[in-house]
């Protein structure tokens, strides 16, 4: 008895349900994307299934120059999650444009390119290199990395730094593709950071990146990770991520924040997990760490989410976005 998990796992097509969604001007065939750093640039998953069937492939964050990343160990398994401290290893944008982007294009995949820089200028430079490349569907700005100019403080932890990076990128991109700002949950007030990004022109928000964590090795009696702390991801953090999406979408409903699409990220393993994010206010979702548990997860979650939405009587994704706020408001009205 063997069944291939990818087919066995997928729910059949949801009849009469329109799985399309949009992130600003980017139309997606379905709302489930890979998450940055959890699918490289699509090629490896392409050996298991057709990545063109995904909503989009979000690339590992691309830097200007090649970067070796951190020493090892780079990961630790934690209860229902993991820590990573990869250190943005990658070959740099030249190699990305020469090898990876063409592969994605040739394979019909929608590419959302994640970028990361040491300072705002580097982010803008990267965006400029990407914006006119065919195949780039959107730029995701990974502001959850250290700001070299500001004592290594993570950009996304400060509204000013976040705004600076986002406005630089938005200027260069000039509306040709949507710009998503990817937020960190490690802040006192996520709405304030969301506001800084949206006020400075971001077309949407990707929420959330990993939360800072650490594991001590009780044998060696030092931190497990060579980099000491790392990013916590996986189902363990899902309630935190859903809460962040909820808070930001609620602020939009209240009129405290310009309305813009949210891409929900954090611990999604099943279609029902993805549905939580949609009901909380996300127009699309990304599947990250679960890909390590189940490489078929991004594809399977897409099928399961469509089924779940259809079963609940939604005709399309947009109808369900933020629906839990509506249900709650109705309750309050009673």
């Amino acid at each position, binding site marked *: 008895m063997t069944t291939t998990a990818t087919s066995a796992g997928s729910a059949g097509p949801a009849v009469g349900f329109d799985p399309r969604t949009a992130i600003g001007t980017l139309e997606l065939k379905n709302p489930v994307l890979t998450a940055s750093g959890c699918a490289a640039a699509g*090629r*490896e998953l392409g050996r298991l299934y057709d990545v063109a069937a995904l909503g989009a492939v979000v690339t590992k964050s691309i830097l200007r*120059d090649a970067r070796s990343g951190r020493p090892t160990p780079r990961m630790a398994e934690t209860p229902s999650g993991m820590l990573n401290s990869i250190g943005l290893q990658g070959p740099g944008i030249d190699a990305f444009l020469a090898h990876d982007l063409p592969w994605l294009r040739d394979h019909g995949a929608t590419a959302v390119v994640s970028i990361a820089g040491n300072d705002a200028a580097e982010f803008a430079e990267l965006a400029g290199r990407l914006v006119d490349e065919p195949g780039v569907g959107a730029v995701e700005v990974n502001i959850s990395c250290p700001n070299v100019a500001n004592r290594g403080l993570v950009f996304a932890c400060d509204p000013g730094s976040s705004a600076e990076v986002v406005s630089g990128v938005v200027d260069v991109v000039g509306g040709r593709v949507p710009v998503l700002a990817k937020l960190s949950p490690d802040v006192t007030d996520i709405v304030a950071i969301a506001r800084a990004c949206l006020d400075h022109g971001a077309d949407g928000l990707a929420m959330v990146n990993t939360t800072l964590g650490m594991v001590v090795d009780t*044998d060696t009696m030092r931190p497990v990770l060579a980099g000491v702390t790392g990013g916590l991801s996986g*189902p363990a953090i899902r309630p935190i991520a859903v809460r962040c999406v909820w808070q930001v979408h609620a602020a939009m409903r209240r009129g405290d924040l310009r309305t813009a699409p949210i891409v929900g990220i954090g611990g999604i393993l099943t279609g029902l997990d993805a549905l939580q994010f949609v009901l909380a206010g996300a127009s699309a979702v990304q599947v990250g760490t679960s890909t390590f*548990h189940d490489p078929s997860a991004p594809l399977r979650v897409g099928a399961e989410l469509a089924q779940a939405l259809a079963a609940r009587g939604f005709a399309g994704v947009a109808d369900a976005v933020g629906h839990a706020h509506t249900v709650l408001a109705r309750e309050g009205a009673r």
Partner: protein
Amino acid sequence: MSAVTGPAPAGVPAAETLGARDRRPDPVQVRCAVLANEPDGAYRRLVLDAGEAARRALPGQFAALAVGEPPTAMLLRRAVSIHAATPGDRRFDGADTLEIVVAPHGPGTEWVTRRRAGDVLDVVAPLGRPFPAPEVGAPTVLVGGGYGSAPLVWLARDLRDAGHRVDVVLGAASRDKLFGLEEAAAVVGPDLVHVTTDDGSAGLRGRVTDALAPLARDGVVVYACGPMAMLRAVHEVAAGAGGTSWLAVEESMACGIGVCMTCVLPVRGEDGVTRMTRSCVEGPTFDGDRVRWDAISIGPGGATSAVPADCLGAPVAAGKGH
């Protein structure tokens, strides 16, 4: 069933160029019924009904197993070497089987060793670069430490069939931790199987390198699988004798399929440039001469890698990257 793959790669391809020359089979994700789970010394030997994964596997490749019943707290797959792949396995009604040998190490592998016949495992396989073939006619020595010998018996058979002399060195801390003695003897003959144990409970008291040294000579191709300290020692003996060593490393892996960048170690590529190289796709088998031993520290908890200063994209003391 399947022969050792194509020509020996001249070296480790750079991460960015991997793919073009790579003839490895694509992996599949399969839900496999456990057909048998038997003790073997300190280990458990499991036979899985693995279908397409079994039909595709080549020696040196590994499988990544999901662990724990859903909803499991253990998200990451556990990598295990493929001990045997037997399409049409007569022992199991012609099923296409994969065999694995598992040491109960932590909660994940312990869970695997507790599976019973009929239970189902979610397996991604075959993964990683198969063992490269030696030059035609080269003498070979296969060195396995503990369960590290699991992938070697299959390789021994293929090498023997391809006309190579094959010596097998099996080492372990103690007799119960030796694996594959009878199987290896059946393939290469008992005289060519050399056993060492740390405590002398079987074979020679000593290390695998004590048995390897007399076999290592110019042109020898050594294949080794075991702890990093052993691999380094094997490399030194092989290199010292003018031979080649292909070392299957055991790095901590989060994904096993090349997407996460956790399983890296510093390896010099064909172009002479050192990169933090993924052991799950560019490895697990590396040319011992290309591993940057100077950056690898071997402690009691396993091996860790620093980033050599000349590594591609290494941090520079001040200012921006290279």
